[in-house]
């Protein structure tokens, strides 16, 4: 490996270099952004203004602001003007509180056509900041494959042509880590961002962010998965971003009041130590514990979200994966994360594809991947899930979108919408893991039916209708995407609030804005439209805040204080909200309250909504999901929950005596679609938006985001 990388490095050709004064992080900020344009190889430093910090805070907020200024409403994802912005946020990089090393990535998405944000672990964001940069803003396109290298100790940045290193991430991360580390011990100080060949060949490319795992002796990969940012990355001909910074300590983030942070961190470390083993077992199995819970509550997507459970789901349960995960290692994706959910399978021998026969360390498997690639495709084989997870990651394709699009393809195949001729011989029936694996390789390598599948559900719907004569009503009802983004892996049919949680989300149906199914469906805590609207106001705002600050959502409510159930609002986990207020104030020296925390998010959230509007979306019609998000599309779906649906119709006063299933589906649909519209009305009112879902002038003024171009844009919609 070492000799190899020496040769590879010799083949680099320097295109540009900038030397810079090393910065110092003060109260969570370095007050500078590193701007790079790959068209003309510009490298320059830009100031981070007080206004940016006051209004956009950092992370996703900074990304949205830079991108807003970089693109017009006409800009497409593959135009050179499009940017990739990476920023962690003021809290990002503290070592004392679990889940505080996230990077937020923002770009125009190839699959949605509008702005996308993705939250990812690994060391890049914090090491970038400690190297002197609050954000990295990359514009332009290179002619040949390049890397950007940031040396945060010696103070220089280079753009280099890099022809020889691998594109696939498990190799790229290993090669660049070895290339830039001075020694084995030094590898932990190098972080790599890379994509993979699949990011070139699909529209659902992802970015892998590495962190060096000292115990396993390999770089591990965490994914900025959603929305195809990896595809933008490869379109810009970026092979890798590499940062090196040696010297992370407990005060490198320059906190104003470190004691506040330490105290909050110790409270949480102790909770995790005492309670994780009896709550979610994140330290043992990560998010894999969710599979059996979702199956038990009929929420696990099975066979393209038709059903919510399956007798074979037990084969994908956490106890099964536990046997594959290496146990007892500190699996945090940034220093200080005692939740340690980043599980891995070591020495996994691959059975297929270009790396067949090799033994690899797989960052696998998280709930979304297990549910999406497994249950949703009717495949209940853990080794298939691990292998598919490996290839999705190293090819650089999003495993959530892959799961959902594969499930859609399989249902279309089973219903005769597509056939073997169209799939090039692949028998894509539910449960056919060989065909599914082959399709992943086709997507990764850009051939066969993989070239169609890799374009995502929305484009496939169009192709199936226009080229293969599919019934547009049916494919639109069963293709699980909103705004062009494939749905993440929860069945929302029986929870109106979660239908809103998915379909109203700014970037598309990802559950990072709101996950309200238990509050709504199981615990029945939000019965009225106003209750649901309040939940769909509070939780998206609260959860947006993690992305402004470089934080992970999981330590908020995947561990709860022992007495959380006795608080006024257990769903908010009030003690942890207090921790977040404390660590924000501890870092920045400000004195915000929990209400101001929400206000910080509200500014950015509304700005992102308006950004969608700028790109030609962002109104009510883009918030309406396919019917399968809301209820049963097909006879089989209705029948699988006939008792529930019959009961609901009777309670609503429908006369169902002697009615056929088709008639009952129609009645239920009429009711549920109307309910969803009423939900939108209530949520828009609560958020201060017009009935068409556009923030009002009053709202943007109140929030202080009434910039002239914002006012001009939304004025047309008032």
């Amino acid at each position, binding site marked *: 490996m070492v000799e190899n990388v020496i040769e590879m490095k010799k083949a680099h050709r320097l295109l540009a270099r900038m030397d810079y004064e090393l910065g110092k992080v003060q109260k969570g900020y370095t007050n500078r952004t590193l701007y790079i344009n790959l068209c003309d190889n510009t490298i320059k430093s830009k100031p981070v203004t007080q206004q940016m910090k006051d209004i956009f805070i950092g992370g996703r907020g900074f990304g949205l602001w830079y991108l807003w200024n970089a693109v017009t409403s006409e800009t497409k994802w593959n135009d050179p003007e499009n940017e990739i912005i990476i920023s962690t946020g003021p809290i990002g990089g503290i070592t004392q509180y679990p889940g505080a090393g996230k990077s937020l990535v923002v770009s125009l998405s190839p699959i949605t056509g509008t702005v996308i944000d993705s939250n990812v672990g690994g060391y890049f964001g914090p090491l970038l900041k400690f190297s002197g940069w609050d954000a990295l803003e990359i514009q332009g396109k290179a002619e040949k494959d390049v890397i950007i290298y940031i040396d945060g100790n010696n103070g220089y940045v280079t753009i280099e042509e890099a022809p020889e290193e691998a594109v696939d991430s498990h190799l790229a991360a290993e090669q660049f880590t070895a290339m830039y580390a001075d020694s084995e011990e030094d590898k932990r100080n190098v972080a790599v961002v890379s994509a993979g060949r699949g990011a070139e060949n699909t529209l659902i490319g992802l970015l892998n962010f590495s962190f060096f795992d000292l115990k396993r002796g390999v770089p591990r990969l965490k994914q900025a998965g959603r929305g195809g940012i990896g595809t933008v990355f490869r379109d810009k001909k970026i092979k890798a971003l590499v940062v090196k910074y040696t010297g992370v300590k*407990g*005060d490198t983030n320059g906190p104003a009041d*470190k004691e506040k942070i330490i105290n909050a961190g110790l409270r949480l470390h102790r909770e995790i130590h005492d309670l994780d083993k009896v709550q979610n077992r994140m330290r043992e199995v990560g998010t894999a514990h969710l599979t059996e819970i979702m199956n038990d509550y009929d929420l696990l997507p099975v066979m393209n979200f038709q059903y919510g459970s399956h007798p074979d789901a037990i084969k994908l349960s956490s106890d099964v994966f536990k046997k594959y995960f290496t146990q007892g290692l500190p699996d945090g994706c940034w*220093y200080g994360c005692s939740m340690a959910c980043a599980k891995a399978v070591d020495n996994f021998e691959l059975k297929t594809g270009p790396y067949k026969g090799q033994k690899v360390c797989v960052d696998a498997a998280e709930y979304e991947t297990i549910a999406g690639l497994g249950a949703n495709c009717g495949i209940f084989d853990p080794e298939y899930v691990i292998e598919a997870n490996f290839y999705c990651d190293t090819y650089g394709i999003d495993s959530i979108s892959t799961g959902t699009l594969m499930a859609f393809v399989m249902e279309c195949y089973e219903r005769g919408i597509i056939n073997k001729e169209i799939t090039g011989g692949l028998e894509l029936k539910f449960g056919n893991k060989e065909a599914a694996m082959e399709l992943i390789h086709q997507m990764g390598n850009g051939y066969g039916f993989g070239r169609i599948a890799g374009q995502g559900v929305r484009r496939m719907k169009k192709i199936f209708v226009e080229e293969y004569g599919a019934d547009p009503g049916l494919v639109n009802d069963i293709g699980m995407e909103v705004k062009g983004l494939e749905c993440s892996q929860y069945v929302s049919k029986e929870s109106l609030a979660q239908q809103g949680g998915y379909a109203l989300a700014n970037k598309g149906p990802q559950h990072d804005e709101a996950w309200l199914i238990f509050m709504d469906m199981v615990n029945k805590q939000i019965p009225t439209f106003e209750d649901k609207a309040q939940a769909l106001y509070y939780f998206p705002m609260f959860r947006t805040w993690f992305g402004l600050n470089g934080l992970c959502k999981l330590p908020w409510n995947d561990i709860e204080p022992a007495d959380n159930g006795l608080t006024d609002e257990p769903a908010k986990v009030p003690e942890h909200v207090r921790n977040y207020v404390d660590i924000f104030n501890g870092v920045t020296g400000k004195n915000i309250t929990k209400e101001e925390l929400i206000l910080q998010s509200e500014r950015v959230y509304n700005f992102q909504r308006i950004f969608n509007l700028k790109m030609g979306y962002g109104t009510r019609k883009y918030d309406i999901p396919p019917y399968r998000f809301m209820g049963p599309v097909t006879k089989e779906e209705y029948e699988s929950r006939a008792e529930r649906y019959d009961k609901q119709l009777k309670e609503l006063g429908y006369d169902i005596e002697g009615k056929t299933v088709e008639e009952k589906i129609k009645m239920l649909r009429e009711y549920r679609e109307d309910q969803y519209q009423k939900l939108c009305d209530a949520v828009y009112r609560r958020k201060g938006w017009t009935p068409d879902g556009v923030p009002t002038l009053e709202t943007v003024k109140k929030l202080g985001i009434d910039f002239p171009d914002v006012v001009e844009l939304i004025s047309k919609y008032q």
Partner: protein
Amino acid sequence: MKIVKTKPELCNGCGACMTACSKVLYRVEDPKKSAIRIKEKAEKSGSYEIFVCNHCGECIPVCNTEAMYQAKNGAVRVDDKKCVGCYICVGFCPNNAMFTHPDINEPIKCIACGACTRVCPTGAIYMDEK
């Protein structure tokens, strides 16, 4: 190896141990920078609890940076060069015997030097085989 052992019932709360410890570790006389802590029991005035590391080593595997290690003499030590000050070890210590101070990036931890036992006037702490 010999570690600090305790007989809390003999402790008079004078705090000499804490002063001695901080002097050895950080060259200051500051109980808040000591790796041994004396705490008066809330329910019983004049009675004390003593918190000090027993070098059980449970902190070693929880460390992300391999900064916790067992030294040749058996003592569990912190390698300051590797430590990033996350304090998971402090939060996960089964005996609450590791400490923090905002001026010090690393956890404050007993090195089994015995300095505290040498200044204890009552014999409440003493060195003995682990």
